[in-house]
């Protein structure tokens, strides 16, 4: 291989390496919720109790983790062009508030009172335990 060709190949390899680094570290978004594995599976009651009893300990277990939560729907908020928010009942003052990844394909009223399994990323406790980027796993 001539020296000139070697330089061109080296520049291409370095260029591709830099482009790959930029893409994977700066431009690529994380996987969708469908592709993410849950690190915990529990009921809405158990999840809320964990945060209500000891928020710091619950943060260690659940904060920024993907969780599958099962519970009874107490409320659904659906506004035009906004992501739906499904609330799951707990025994405490708050609820598990699940902001969905997308707009719901069905009427929220039909879901109230149903048992549901939802997967989402837990972002912590305010009055409610909040999940974001959520999807319905099972109705």
């Amino acid at each position, binding site marked *: 291989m001539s020296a000139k060709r070697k330089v061109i190949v080296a520049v291409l390899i370095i260029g591709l390496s830099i482009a790959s680094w930029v893409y994977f570290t700066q*431009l690529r978004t994380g996987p969708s919720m469908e592709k993410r594995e849950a690190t915990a599976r529990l009921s809405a009651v158990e999840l809320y109790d964990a945060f209500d009893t000891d928020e710091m300990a619950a943060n260690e277990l659940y904060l920024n983790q993907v969780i599958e939560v099962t519970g009874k729907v107490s409320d659904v*908020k659906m506004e035009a062009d*906004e992501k739906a928010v499904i609330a799951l009942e707990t025994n405490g003052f708050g609820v598990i508030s699940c902001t969905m990844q997308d707009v719901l394909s069905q009427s929220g009223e039909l879901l109230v009172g149903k048992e549901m399994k939802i997967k989402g990323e837990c*972002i*912590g406790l305010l009055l*409610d335990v*909040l999940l974001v980027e959520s999807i319905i796993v099972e109705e």
Partner: protein
Amino acid sequence: MRIKILACLFVFAMMQEAVAQRYFTRDGEIKFFSEAPLENIEAKSAKVLCILDLAKGQVAVDLLVKSFEFPKKLMQEHFNENYMESHEFPKSTFKGSFDVPKALEDMEDGSYEVQVSGEITIHGVTKPINMPIELTVADGMINTSFDFTVKVADHDIEIPNLVVDNIAEEILVSAKFALEPYKR
């Protein structure tokens, strides 16, 4: 016997009146806007907790940083991972106090301007903040909306030189709350 029943009802009514001194919402809205040469950035959270205590003249606002939604998912990821470091500082909070006019304490319909002074904590750094806020009482609820600015550098939020033209040094924050009586 009738006097005893009336006395009980009177005491019960007074208890209800005394109880409704705290107002809250779990669905408050905060937006922020960054104007910079290369692009404007806007994000919104509609899961903000606000509690207002008229008896004590205190207000508290809590939000989870990851509840902010951006038009571009990549921007949201960079916001959380690189700038706000929300894995380490998941919450932002505000606690303040103000003098409560008598008419406001009695929840008379009308608008009341109060001067709130307190502390705001963002990215783990607490700074004092003072601002006037208008509270509007109508039909037993309290509505308020107000704006203020936050200097990014004040809260140790580092903006890399590479993107300094993408993000403003001062961010405009807009808050909007519809507060209802707090019933435990």
